[in-house]
């Protein structure tokens, strides 16, 4: 079982499944991929991985989500896991929120929907190399 994982958080299934197939194709079984439809669910996954000793390398998160927004979510993650690389993938950019995430969660990249596969993969690879 791969001990390293990439976690995607978005409240839209269509986004998660299309990300899943992109990741699967580019990185194959090198990593495990996990998906969450809300920040709450993502925290659950992070906790489970932590208990199972799986290391999360990258989190790709939407910004506009129910309950907790992407900036707050990534900042909270950062406080606990500063080593995880954080990427935002958003359909609607709120400049302040992005700036906040840069500052307080060391945001690696902010990608905009619709994203191109190349920029997504580049963001992930450059993040993985850090």
């Amino acid at each position: 079982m791969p001990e390293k994982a990439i976690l995607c958080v978005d409240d839209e299934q269509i986004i998660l499944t299309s990300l899943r197939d992109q990741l699967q194709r580019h990185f194959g079984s090198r990593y495990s991929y996990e998906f969450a439809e809300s920040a709450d669910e993502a925290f659950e996954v992070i906790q489970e991985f932590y208990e199972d000793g799986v290391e999360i390398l990258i989190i790709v998160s939407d910004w506009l989500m129910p309950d907790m927004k992407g900036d707050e979510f990534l900042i909270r993650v950062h406080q606990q896991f500063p080593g995880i690389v954080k990427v935002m993938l958003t359909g609607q950019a709120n400049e302040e929120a992005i700036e906040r995430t840069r500052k307080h969660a060391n945001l690696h990249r902010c990608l905009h929907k619709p994203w191109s596969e190349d920029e997504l993969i580049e963001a992930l690879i450059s993040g993985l190399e850090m």
Partner: protein
Amino acid sequence: MAGRKGNILAVDDTHANLRLLAGIFAEREYRVRPVPDGAMAVSAAQAEPPDLILLDIMMPGMDGYEVCERLKADERTCDIPVIFISAKNDLFDKVKGFSLGGVDYITKPFQAEEVLARVETHLSLRSLQTRLEEKNKALTDALEQLKATQNQLVLQEKMAALGHLVAGIAHEINTPLGAIQASINNITNALNASVRELPRLIQHLSFERQADFFALSEAALKSKETLSSREARKKRRSLRKVLEDHEIDDAESASNILVNMGVHQDVSAFIPLLKEKESPFILQTAYNLFVQQNNSQNIKTAVERVSKVVFALKSYARHDDSGQMIQAVVTEGIDVVLTLYYNQLKRGIEIIKNYSAVPHIPCHPDELNQVWTNIIHNAIYAMDGKGQLEISVRASEGADSDPEAGWIIIRMTDSGKGVPDDVRAKMFEPFFTTKPAGEGSGLGLDIVRKIIDRHQGRIDVESEPGKTTFSVFLPIRQ
């Protein structure tokens, strides 16, 4: 002498009379123009309209009645008060004088005091009337201006509501576009891989395993189920145990792929296939077939989402300038607004729709959209984004004797904090808001009420903490 007190035209064919009248008025700071016959009187009045005309009736040529008729027929002179002065003293003449538009009637021989008193009375009446007309005009202008301002405010409120929405709509459109873009790549790549790998796979598999492979692919293509990410995790875990019990290598990857393909109910038929040496390659190839279908489905869903938003935007922005009511079904308007608010609603608000079939009614659909937008917007605010919004729509048929005197009743009930009594008394007033300064205009419900009034409907509010209902009644036939 300047006519400080007024400008009078005196008409009489008797010079002695003219002189007498001129003398009376000139002494008292009036300006008097004496005119000896009817035709001259008409042209003098038209050339320079006086404040009042004293008019003899019996004159050679054009008599006083005809002069008066002509003056009344001319826009320039029709408002000038005319007082008849005549030696004729029977009722018939007086009545005729008044019916032609005269304001008074003085009989000769006259007393200077009487003439003066009557002239003064009519001049002051006239000036009061003029002032009244000016005030009236000012009022009409002010009203026009108010109406224009109100229309402006209605439009501003509509634009503000639209502004709330636009931010969400960018997300609403970019999200499906993102999914479409990624899915197209996924399909292209999976198709290329399938074309490349299928022949090789077939060569390597026995007939039996080939049949298994196609059965697996078919099961994947047929599976309609979409699991939430949470459910998918559970399934993967339990399937992994099953596969491990069958001693399948890399049970984790296999269970991931099978669950992604929607094949997780009964996998026993596929165990032999999974035990093949090349099983990762076999699974990947089956998965590539599935990717093509699944991502097409993604695109379809995404396109539907975008079209819905565009349609809703179009219906929202449509403005009927004709001012004519058109036939529409209210539930369609409500759904348009719900689509536009989908983004804000899905984050924690459960929508319960109870629509009964309702007839078309004559209405202004764009205005009603504003009503639903305001009520829903207020509800989201009152619930702080979390709770339940129940929308029921039904038609009441009214009394049996008059089946058409029915109403369409729209009820929107939110589970928010409720409306305190003191707020409730004022909530429909313009500019009343409990929102912090700068956040709310307080015009929302004022506009709602105006729009409903225009539809000859009414709106009621009932509220207790946790349950606030706005009921809108719209007449079915107007």
